[in-house]
């Protein structure tokens, strides 16, 4: 049986999940859900968010209570556009709550992923400029841009096949590493180290790591430790993949 409170909870969890998936800090997710639940009439709210699940209980003015939980798998992305839209949406809804079905639709709209051309241009620009930033030549930058495309391709095609982000980072960095080392062998003007450094920047989980430290600092120790461990494992996967490639072909 569908009831108003269950619908409200479900939408709240949708909101929280979308925020987690766009890379928001735990503190921000909990706080936003709390404000939204209040705006929609809940008198008592208790929300617990960690990187892999959300549990929320609300109590309505008539004394009824409801609890729902949601398992979150593989939340590792960063989407600043979605984060910003969700933030604006929650601000709007806290002032004047919109009907739940419209809120659900707006959450869906906000979840749009980055368009492919923008994603490609961003990756190319980022890898090429970081390559020069760390001392590469113009040719290195061109090569870094080409291999950034390869990494993008892997992120789109290989990532959905991988069981988790550790395996993906290992495979992706191994494939990219082999391609970079091999082409630097064939084309002597290229510097392997500068190209790899440029492309590594696309894969390093630096932001997740700083986020996890912030989580710990504001008291979300569990999530913080979890995210920190995860990001460390991703980095280890990344390093192992590149090391394997360098060992195989020679850096």
């Amino acid at each position, binding site marked *: 049986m569908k009831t108003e409170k269950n619908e409200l909870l479900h939408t709240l969890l949708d909101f929280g999940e979308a925020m987690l998936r766009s890379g928001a800090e735990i503190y921000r997710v909990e706080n936003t859900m709390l404000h939204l639940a209040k705006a929609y009439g809940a008198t008592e709210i208790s929300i617990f968010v960690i990187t892999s699940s959300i549990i929320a209980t609300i109590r309505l003015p008539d004394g009824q209570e409801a609890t729902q939980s949601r398992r979150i798998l593989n939340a590792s992305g960063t989407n600043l*556009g979605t984060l910003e839209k969700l933030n*604006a949406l929650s601000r709007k809804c806290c002032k004047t709550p919109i009907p739940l079905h419209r809120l659900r639709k707006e959450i869906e709209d906000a979840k749009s992923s980055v368009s492919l051309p923008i994603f490609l241009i961003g990756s190319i*620009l980022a890898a090429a400029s970081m390559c020069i930033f760390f001392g590469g030549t113009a040719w290195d930058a061109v090569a870094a841009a080409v291999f950034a495309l390869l990494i993008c391709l892997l992120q789109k095609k290989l990532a959905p096949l991988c069981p988790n982000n550790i395996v993906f980072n290992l495979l992706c960095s191994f494939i990219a590493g082999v391609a970079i080392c091999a082409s630097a062998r064939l084309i002597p003007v290229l510097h392997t*180290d500068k190209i790899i450094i440029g492309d590594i920047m696309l894969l390093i989980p630096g*932001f997740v790591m700083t986020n996890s430290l912030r989580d710990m600092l504001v008291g979300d120790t569990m999530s913080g430790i979890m995210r920190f461990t995860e990001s460390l494992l991703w980095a280890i996967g990344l390093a192992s993949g590149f090391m394997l490639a360098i060992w195989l072909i020679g850096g």
Partner: protein
Amino acid sequence: MGIQIITALLGSLGFSLLFGLRPRYLCFATLGGGICWAFYQCCLQMGLSVFVTCLLASAFSAIYGELLARIMKAPAPLFFIPTAIPLVPGSTLYYTMRSVVQGELSTAADYGIQTLLTALAIAAGVSLVWSMFFMEDRLESYLKKK
């Protein structure tokens, strides 16, 4: 050094695009990366150690992010993440890996420690600023209640 500031700008722009930042915020995020690196270089010129410099630069990016967040009424990570991009220790991580593969373990340890220290400095700088802004928020709501 000039080329580094320009590439830091472009790098921050690239990451902003990659992370789906909306066009209206792009210029602030891009500018942040350049200013952050210029600030980093200034600190180094003043003779500060790499660790302290990195800490100050990350604190600087966090302040930049929080202030813009307040002005633009948008979440701080939108501005902080692209701004701090030039500080990410990608190169020392690579040299750590290469030294491990080549069997030069003491060089690897040197680079590894440098990488970890840089990560720690970034986190420490950011955390300091974040906790200050957090307390300021609490203080404000406390004063409002009174």
